[in-house]
């Protein structure tokens, strides 16, 4: 019996962990190669339709098209209408808006 001692079992499980980690890297590399076609299709659609943003959330216009948003969109209807959409909580404002706000 090879795994007679508990330390043998521990080192074997460590080895399995490292192998799983390596497998993740291999899987990611294979996935990236297989997905090239899909990425090309998406790029073609973006080019053909002149799209500017990913469709990650559709609840608010400033999170549906964050790159097209202006500084005031989270206060959509009046100055104290604060951002109330959940997606606004995890999406940071675009850097070009921050630059404008700070630089002008």
């Amino acid at each position, binding site marked *: 019996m090879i795994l007679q001692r508990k330390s043998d079992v521990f080192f074997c499980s*460590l080895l399995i962990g490292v192998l799983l980690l390596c497998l993740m890297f291999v899987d*990611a590399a294979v996935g990236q190669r297989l997905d090239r076609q899909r990425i090309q299709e998406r790029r073609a659609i973006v080019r053909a*339709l002149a*799209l500017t943003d*990913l469709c990650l959330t559709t609840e608010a216009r400033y999170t549906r098209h*964050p790159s097209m948003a202006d500084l005031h969109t989270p206060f959509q209807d009046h100055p104290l209408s604060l951002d109330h959409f959940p997606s606004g909580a995890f999406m940071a404002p675009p850097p*070009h808006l921050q630059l404008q706000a700070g630089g002008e």
Partner: protein
Amino acid sequence: MGAIEKQRHILDFTLSSLGRRKGKNIALIIVYTFVIFLIASVLFLADSLKKEAAQILQDAPEMTVQRLAAGRQDLIPLDYIESIKAIKGVQSVEPRLWGYYYDAFSGANYTLMVNADLNDHPGAILIGAGVTRRSEPGKPPQSLRKNDRIPFKTYEGEVLTLQVKGGLPAASELVTADLILLSEPDFRKLFAFPHDRATDLVLTVKNTKELATIATKITRIHPDSRPILRNDILRTYDAVFDWRGGVILMILSGVFLAFIILAWDKATGLSAEEKREIGILKAIGWETADILLMKFWEGSAVSLTSFFLGIFLAYLHVFLASSLLFEPVLKGWSVLYPHFRLTPHIHSYQIAVLFFLTVIPYTVVTIVPSWRSATIDPDAVMRM
């Protein structure tokens, strides 16, 4: 006895000792694995979204020009096209007509966009994969098919019925889930859109190095305009999902700090049984260094097991289960939600960050307080 053999004996003993408190240690490994799983999932998801955005949006318009009115985006007059075209270096200027439509039937928000190819087919629309799942709230989705009709309420109160002529490729759902492409006459009729206005303008330039100069010239000619460069779009997605800033990191650091407190508490508040164990070990000749070594192996066994399990589960969660647990957060109040699978992207930097954020602090937190218990007089410990 060789140094390696000594370490193995200590490790054998440590693992037996952990086995004697099976319930407690399994509970600890489950919590620890979950913390690493959460942090790793956020890292993997944010990084893959950023990479995907960077790859897909490489072909986004080189420059988009909006018009602002009272600080908010407004419709842009079509006569801006001529003056912008006259700027040296501008190759083409095309108006984009797009907007949002709230569908009262399903409660979903759609992005409606004019596609020139449909101008000869008024009444026809092409829909994104998310729109095909249009359904009444609370009812199972009925897939929209070719030739199905969708009624839209125009801004003048009339009903405009448009017929589905086809769907956009499912592979493009990450960018087109909520998209409805329609003809210009239908778009103008639906939104009572003025004929001399567009939503914004998209530009191509002869030399991309001149983009910033052209943008400056545009704002000089039209001070009410706002040019957005392709680089701004790319940087937006780099910043929007930056895990190092914002609420995500705050929440995760809270979770991690709570875990560190738990680990600290566990290590400092050694149970009577653990203290007796240390006392007996010292009484039979173990050195303080050996006990610290035992604690080091204990911390390593727990943290490395949780680390590998957490990372592996996070990988499966993000890249095979499409971040199922994060869906409610990403979805928010959206009725339409894209179903997409991300291309796996992981790199050694992420794994190193996770290792130094999780395994090292836990191991240190376990060893340091144990040093105190290891230096107690064995006789006093065994009498407790």
